[in-house]
């Protein structure tokens, strides 16, 4: 198992977290076993613990009152947020249901990732070439579920996009499918290879993003065309 795999657990450990034996602590427990035999991580824990201690002894600085005034003022200005940070339903009221569907797909993917990263880890191993890296299958499964849902949604709105845009999106989805296939083939040869795992999950993640964009574009085109058609109709009356 790579030290990098445990970045989050290392931080938690330095903050005082210890494995309790509950299922949710499986990765922390795996890190503790890894730590026992890894000089590099032991050194990092020692360094971070020392820094944490030093930081705790630093003099406390209170932010000036004007800072809070500015924060409060900025909270009171929701209209200053750019369009991509506004709630989707507010920005594009006509496709709020689509936004909800996309959000759900995102939620699935996010939850999947979290679930995967909290899967009980295999026995620790420090030897080079040791097998039993975390299996990407659970994450893949959920990514695939999100992709299937988004593909269905995108297909139902396909007519909303012009032919050129559809062609570009299709070509790029094919590029991503190739990347996914190549990563899977690499993992079939070297199941424990961290780079192949990262490449596969990167490609799946990018495909989810592209499909979300496709759905959003189609919905946006619908909203825009309805506005335009409505405006043209009014002027013609």
């Amino acid at each position, binding site marked *: *198992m*790579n*030290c*990098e795999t445990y970045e989050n657990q290392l931080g938690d450990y330095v903050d005082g977290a210890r494995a309790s034996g509950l299922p949710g602590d499986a990765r922390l427990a795996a890190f503790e076993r890894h730590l026992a035999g*890894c*000089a*590099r991580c032991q050194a990092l824990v020692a360094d971070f613990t020392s820094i944490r201690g030093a930081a705790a002894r630093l003099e406390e600085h209170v932010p000036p009152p004007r800072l809070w005034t500015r924060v409060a003022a900025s909270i009171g200005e*929701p*209209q*200053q947020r*750019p*369009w*991509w940070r506004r709630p989707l339903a*507010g920005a594009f009221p006509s496709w709020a249901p689509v936004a909800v569907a996309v959000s759900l797909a995102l939620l699935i993917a996010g939850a999947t990732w979290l679930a995967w990263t909290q899967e009980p880890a295999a026995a620790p191993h*420090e*030897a*080079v*070439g*040791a097998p039993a*890296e975390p299996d990407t299958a659970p994450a893949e499964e959920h990514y695939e579920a999100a992709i299937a849902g988004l593909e269905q949604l995108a297909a139902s709105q396909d*007519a*909303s*996009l*012009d*032919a*050129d*845009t559809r062609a*570009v*999106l299709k*070509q*790029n989805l094919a*590029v*991503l499918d*190739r*990347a996914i296939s*190549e*990563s899977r083939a*690499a993992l079939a040869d*070297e199941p424990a*290879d961290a*780079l*192949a795992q*990262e*490449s596969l999950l*990167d*490609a799946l993640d*990018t495909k989810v993003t*592209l499909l979300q*964009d496709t759905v959003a*574009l189609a919905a946006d*085109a619908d*909203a*825009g*065309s309805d*506005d*335009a058609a409505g*405006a*043209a109709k009014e*002027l*013609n009356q």
Partner: protein
Amino acid sequence: MMRARVFVFVVATLAGALPAGAQTPSTQPGATTEVSERFSRSSHLDANGAFDLINLHGNIVITAGSGRDVTIEAVKRVQRPNPNAARALLQTIDIQVVEEANRIEVRTSYPRPRNFPGSVDFTITVPADATVSVRATGGGIRATGIRVEALRTVAGDIDLVDASADQFATASAVSGNVTVRGLKASAIQLTTVSGNVRVDNSRGARLMARAVSGDVEYAGELSRSGRYELVSHSGDVRLLLSGATGFDVQANSFSGTVQSDFPITRRGRGGEGNGRGAATPRAIRGAFGDASAMLVLRAFSGNVSITRR
């Protein structure tokens, strides 16, 4: 939401009702006629305003100006074999300008059918302190000197020059190159699927640049304490470094090669049990100089290189 001021300028008018000279028919090869119409609007933003543009097809050029004015120049174009049909279609393209609370939002829209034979090219000037975001479907985006938040296009290149961002700056294309020069931001995110990403002389605490089938390249100095994550699946990842900033690097390629001009003090294999050693042609992990910057360079089938500029 309460709107302080809302002006919606609907450009669509009755076909044929435009003043003489507004349309400029021109015969294209293949007996296609192009008609065009200019749109012009000036407005104003107070300090730290925001400008958003949503366009479907057409190129966009945005430049930061010295004053507080926003100028929007657009050219609507339609190509059809029949000039009358082209003129009629031209009138159905809307350019809406909405002003509210120190924000200007411009949006173009077309009616059905989807395969609309038209486009709108924009040339825009905004105050230098206005935050700019652009979303386009087909067409390139070229922005100079602006304060950027997000530039997105599906099919087209993005060219961002001498821009800045208070915090997060993002530029993404699906099928197109993303080229950034002289960008200053706390965090920079640049992505494309089938294009290339190239970054020149830009400064940020964090840079994330990704492509799937294209190359990813960073050229310039590293920021001390900066984190640089450059990733491509089948393209090459290249770092052309100037300056003396040291770095900690983790560079990997699954089936390509990894090469560095810099004398890197390599870490041992301890704790890196993926079968790739610290000194194999497919992986380099170690430090150069004071290791103050952090580099994560990853390619699946492409090559990774760190060279002196």
